[in-house]
């Protein structure tokens, strides 16, 4: 079985303006959402307390909310988590001291006991993150992202050329903004695990971009007299089968993770699914055209080429 019996000949570069418009629209939408409604930071970053409990029977959320209402926890989210027996209670950071935040767990468990009898409710998971730590994690996350980009920029500049490095990093920034925008638009909870996923998206997208770039470099040597548009098209087409097969196998695994991996891993898988699709798109439609745009000499050549073909027509 093969996707393409022979190397395909799609004119990807010809669609670069369309792709650019699509990317700009998506980036603007993402940034717009990030700026207006922001990210739904989980307690890893915002600070606060998270309590996951399991009842011995399916539980409606209304009685749970009612039971914990007298504790006056302030901003509280109560939601089902994975199964109808599992309930997640998220208490936002409050003006209270660390000690007061700590006491929340005991109060909540005491309030929930009457709902299900003494052994009917089990504490499955507690996470408490003090405000100070949350801030540090945010800072560390941002720094990690920044340093990763710089390191990549340096590595690709050395292995390829500066314009490839710039193209790859631009594609990465594109992917990160879209993935964060995706989280902002859906208001999914943004946690440490999601950050790990985001960085994996960076890794995956980069992987894809490098494979295409490697081919562009190779075709540049082979097709010395051809315009850069043809070279890039050739490279993208020749790596297309690989790009699709790899995306497919990765997506297969991610789908298994998404549907079967359990609630804790759910958002991680979702981020990666979105990221793999975006990363694949960006390596073809963002990273590759950028190499064309970032090269003044070649760009002139294309203009001449276009001129020549017009005159010919």
């Amino acid at each position, binding site marked *: *079985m*093969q996707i393409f019996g022979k190397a395909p000949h799609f004119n990807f570069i010809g669609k670069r303006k369309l792709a650019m418009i699509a990317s700009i629209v998506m980036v603007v939408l993402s940034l717009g959402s990030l700026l207006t409604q922001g990210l739904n930071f989980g307690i890893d970053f915002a600070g606060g307390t998270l309590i*996951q409990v*399991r009842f011995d029977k399916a539980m409606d959320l209304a009685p749970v909310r009612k039971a914990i209402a007298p504790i006056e926890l302030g901003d509280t989210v109560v939601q089902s988590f994975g199964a109808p027996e599992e309930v997640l209670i998220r208490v936002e950071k409050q003006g209270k001291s*660390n*000690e007061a935040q*700590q006491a929340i*767990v*005991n109060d909540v468990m005491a309030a929930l006991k009457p709902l299900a009898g003494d052994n009917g409710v089990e*504490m*499955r*998971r*507690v996470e*408490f*993150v*003090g405000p*100070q730590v949350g801030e540090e*994690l945010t800072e*560390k*996350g941002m720094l*990690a992202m920044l340093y*990763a980009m710089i*390191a*990549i920029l340096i*590595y690709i500049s050395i*292995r390829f050329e500066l314009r490839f490095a710039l193209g790859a990093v631009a594609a990465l920034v594109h992917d990160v903004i879209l993935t964060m925008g995706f989280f902002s638009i859906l208001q999914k909870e943004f946690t*440490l*695990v999601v950050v*790990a*996923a985001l*960085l*994996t998206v*960076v*890794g*995956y997208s*980069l*992987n894809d971009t*490098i*494979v295409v770039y*490697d*081919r562009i470099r190779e075709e540049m040597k082979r097709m010395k007299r051809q315009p850069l548009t043809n070279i890039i098209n050739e490279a993208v087409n020749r*790596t297309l*089968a*690989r790009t699709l*097969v790899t995306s497919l*196998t*990765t997506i*297969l*695994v*991610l*789908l*298994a*993770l998404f*549907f*079967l*991996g*359990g609630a*804790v*891993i759910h958002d*991680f898988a979702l981020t990666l699914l979105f990221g793999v699709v975006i990363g694949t798109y960006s390596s073809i439609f963002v990273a590759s055209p950028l190499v064309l745009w970032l090269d003044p000499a070649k760009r002139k050549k294309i203009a001449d080429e276009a001129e020549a073909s017009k005159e010919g027509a």
Partner: protein
Amino acid sequence: MRQQPRWKLYLVLLVALGSIYYALPSILGGGNIPSWMSQKVIHQGLDLQGGLYLLYDVKVEEAVKQAANNMVDTARNVLRKERQRYRGIEQVGADRVVVRLTPKSDAPRMVSLLKEEMRESDVEHFQPEAQIRLTLGEAEKEEIRKYAVDQAIEIIRNRIDAFGVSEPSIQKQGKRRIIVQLPGVENPERAKGLIGRTARLDFKLVNEKADLGRALEGRVPPDSLLMYEERGGREGDKQEYPLVVLKRTVLSGQHIQNAQTTFNEYNEPIVSIKFDGVGGRKFSQITGEHIKERLAIVLDGKVQSAPVIQDKIAGGRATISGSFTREEAHDLAIVLRAGALPAPLVILEERSVGPTLGADSVAQGLESILIGGVLVIVFMVLYYKGFGLLANLAVMLNVSILMTLLAVMQATLTLPGIAGAVLLLGMAVDANVLIFERIREELRLGKSPLAAIDHGYGKAFSTILDANITTLITAVILYQFGTGPVRGFAVTLSIGLLASMFTAIFVTRVVLAEFVKNRRIKKLSI
């Protein structure tokens, strides 16, 4: 394709057998590993096996304050020994003690004596007010802070050992933080109470002359403190009784040699303590001098009890009563034995995972790995036929190498780590795909099968290298800046990437070469 050296094949076989040997124990799990096998299994993170993770901040400034407070005693002793009169000695701010002398006293001599006694502090003399200021030096304060953290770690370790947790981990993080990880702890609240309690024990005499009513109005004698004693039965009906005690601590918990739970005549649990030699002598002296007075036993600023001294107590034993449950008494004995924390601890971050959730996570994680893996395996065989089988072999070897390295390095596998491994399955295939697509291309160009294989591997090599190294860079940075589970993810990802490069580039080629050797291949199954 030229004849390959034999060692390559042997190396591949060795790696394959070795990794199966080391990976199997982790697959078999806990109790049922045959004795001839490696006993190293993959260490599961707290999110997988359940347990408690705590990040503490050591309030080191409190230790500095305490050190300054100790200077008050030292200065008082010096002045008393010299029979100097003084108007007052008091702590000002966190790190300074001011001694106000009388105009007649021999200030210059006192300054030099105090300098002698407290070398680590700056001793300044202010002439007109006849004041001596003792300030802790910067270096000394830094030393105190560092000692407070190291000492806290030591004490936490002793407490946890006495509590009985298997494989606890206590680490210093940064300058003043401590990470405590307790796998399998089922009662996180109790563990927290045990670790975080300062357990500073002071014996102070009750100021019998003071007027309690006036003290409650805020007029406490300068040498005394208003404290509260908690009395009464269980939760709810506990009541607080005020008490005026002398500020000076006559004996402190640092002289405790041992502490145990026992029962009093009403069969209530109490904690009996035994002092060391110095403590015992002091205790007998104090009790001898203050018969019929009350001695307050103060734990972390709260009066536990204030029994009337009936007689001089020799032998260095005392008991602490209070309305304890057995558990409380037991835990109090542990913390008293292990000693007081030099500074209070504050929890900055806490994560606890119940054992059932951990088990569910593992089951679900492994199930999704298995299913995802099977999907990929089926797809590869359908798509690349014989070469697909080869790739599958490589991916399985890849997983087994990953497990081996995790087990041997004793790295911790976390939930995101499992996710990372699942993702790697998908990505490990990529290296093979790159090579196979190249071989197909070469075949289309009309190359002979063997030449196509050679070119395929050759040309894909640099791509694989570049692609994997860049991903590795992100993994390393992730490790550097990440914490906890994210780190676990980065470790798994890095190891997996290295393993996948080895299997895809080296192993498949060696196996392939062995397969096509001595055969005149006309057509490749790809």
